[in-house]
């Protein structure tokens, strides 16, 4: 096991985040606060409660999930895309480091950043509304699992992307809509059929639901299913990454 190699990549990626601390952490915090002002303040006064939870509190897990997904993907995808873009990837490819070790370094750093970000958003939200956490361990578990899974997904996108446009393509055209339609701001049980049934095909529903359950002990789908869906997606990402490194897809000639 090349522990020094993993640490080198991890530190390098964390240093990159510290260099751009402003955009890495402050921007998402400001964005989240804006969501609070709009959804929690302006609209929340009209909606009052969802499933017996004050609307301002109800949207917190969804907001955290949304940032977690977009930031995990963008962190991890840029992490591997940038060396491809500048050409410094030659060093990673020629180093005595296995693909698994490389993924641990990159994805570990991206997931760390996401978890820190999630906790900061949670703390920010706590300034606005009361937030009960019924299942703190499950909350942390979902935070970790989601961050790792979507950092893996971001890594895949970073390898696949041939340009900066493609790098933004998936988060903007896939993740943001899925999050908005994934019950971040509403309970899908309130939707009329067929929209409710459609929503069950949206993987983000399971993430938000499970995460919300860990806060309020209530979710749109049973927590076991949420966990299984997230784990399943993680497995899919791992298999894809294994395939990428075995074939050298878009990394090696």
């Amino acid at each position, binding site marked *: 096991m090349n522990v020094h*190699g993993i640490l*080198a990549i991890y530190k390098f990626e964390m240093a990159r985040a510290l260099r751009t601390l402003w955009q890495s952490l402050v921007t998402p915090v400001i964005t989240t606060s804006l969501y609070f002002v709009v959804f929690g303040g302006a609209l929340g006064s009209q909606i009052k409660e969802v499933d017996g939870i004050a609307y301002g509190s109800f949207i917190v897990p969804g907001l955290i999930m949304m940032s977690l997904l977009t930031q995990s993907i963008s962190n991890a995808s840029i992490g591997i895309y940038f060396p491809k873009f*500048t050409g*410094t990837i*030659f060093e990673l490819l020629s*180093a*005595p480091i296995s693909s698994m070790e490389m993924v641990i370094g990159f994805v570990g750093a991206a997931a760390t950043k996401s978890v820190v970000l999630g906790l900061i958003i949670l703390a920010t939200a706590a300034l606005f509304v009361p937030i009960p956490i019924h299942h703190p361990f499950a909350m942390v578990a979902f935070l970790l699992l989601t961050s790792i899974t979507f950092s893996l997904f971001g890594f895949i996108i970073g390898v696949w992307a041939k340009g900066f446009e493609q790098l933004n393509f998936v988060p903007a055209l896939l993740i943001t809509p899925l999050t908005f339609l994934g019950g971040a701001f509403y309970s899908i049980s309130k939707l009329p059929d067929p929209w409710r049934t459609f929503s069950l095909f949206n993987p983000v529903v399971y993430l938000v639901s499970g995460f919300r359950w860990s806060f309020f002990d209530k979710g749109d789908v049973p927590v076991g299913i949420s966990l299984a869906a997230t784990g399943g997606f993680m497995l899919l990402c791992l298999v894809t990454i294994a395939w990428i490194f075995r074939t050298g897809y878009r990394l090696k*000639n």
Partner: protein
Amino acid sequence: MSEPILSVRGVSKTYASGVHALHAVDLDINKGEIFALLGPNGAGKTTLISIICGIVTPSTGTITVGGFDAIGQPKRARRQIGLVPQELATDMFETVESTCRFSRGLFGHPQKSGHIDEVLKDLSLYEKRKAKIMELSGGMKRRVLIAKALAHEPDILFLDEPTAGVDVELRRDMWKLVHRLREKGTTIILTTHYIEEAEEMADRVGVISGGKLLVVDEKAALMKKLGKRELDIALNEAMDTIPGELGDWDLSLENEGKTLRYVFDAQAERTGIPSLLRKLADLNIGFKDLETSKSSLEDIFVDLVKEGGK
């Protein structure tokens, strides 16, 4: 003779685009030598290096580095190799020191600041160790790439076109550095398309063209083979044909008959130049200028390929 430190057997590469970059290359590198891989642009030099370093997957063939199979035991093999690429690919926002630390860690070495300091001093980069790479000049960036490769104490160092686009002073420094590294026991493989560079630095030279390794030989032996020179004689009046009296010399007409070109062996005791000039005077052929040049590498390749075809 001792075991070669690097052994390439039957390595060929066909890219997905259908380009045959390498044809069954066999090559042995001895421990502690400086080996120059000489060839024109597009000959397959970088492909061969990339395959040995694990960046490109070979279509066929095997590579053994210090006794370890590069494909079967990539970690053991790669740990011994340092690569300085041709392109100036650097992490622009990093400092010189941190990027060297990164390389050292990546290759599995614990951080030991003494070694990196030494490397930086050796490359006259120590003063700049806290500078961001983007602030450095092109020549300095190349030094940084060398420092990164040396940061993990490789036994074999690959220098891909180390002096391409580099000023004369840095080129001299580079040559000195290569000799110093060899004294420390590092095996060095460099690619170049300058004959004089191979001549200056290498113990042995391999000539590659069109993806084939045409010849591998001791430098002195090869330079003799390749050491053809040309004498261009600018004539006062253009000629249609070369007079029969000049049949003893290897002559050709260039530049619409205005230039008489004589190809000769610079290593030979008698070049034939004085006698040629006397003969021209005897024949009343006037000339206004003389110019000698080494025959270009392309010419030499043409010769080698022809020889190979015979």
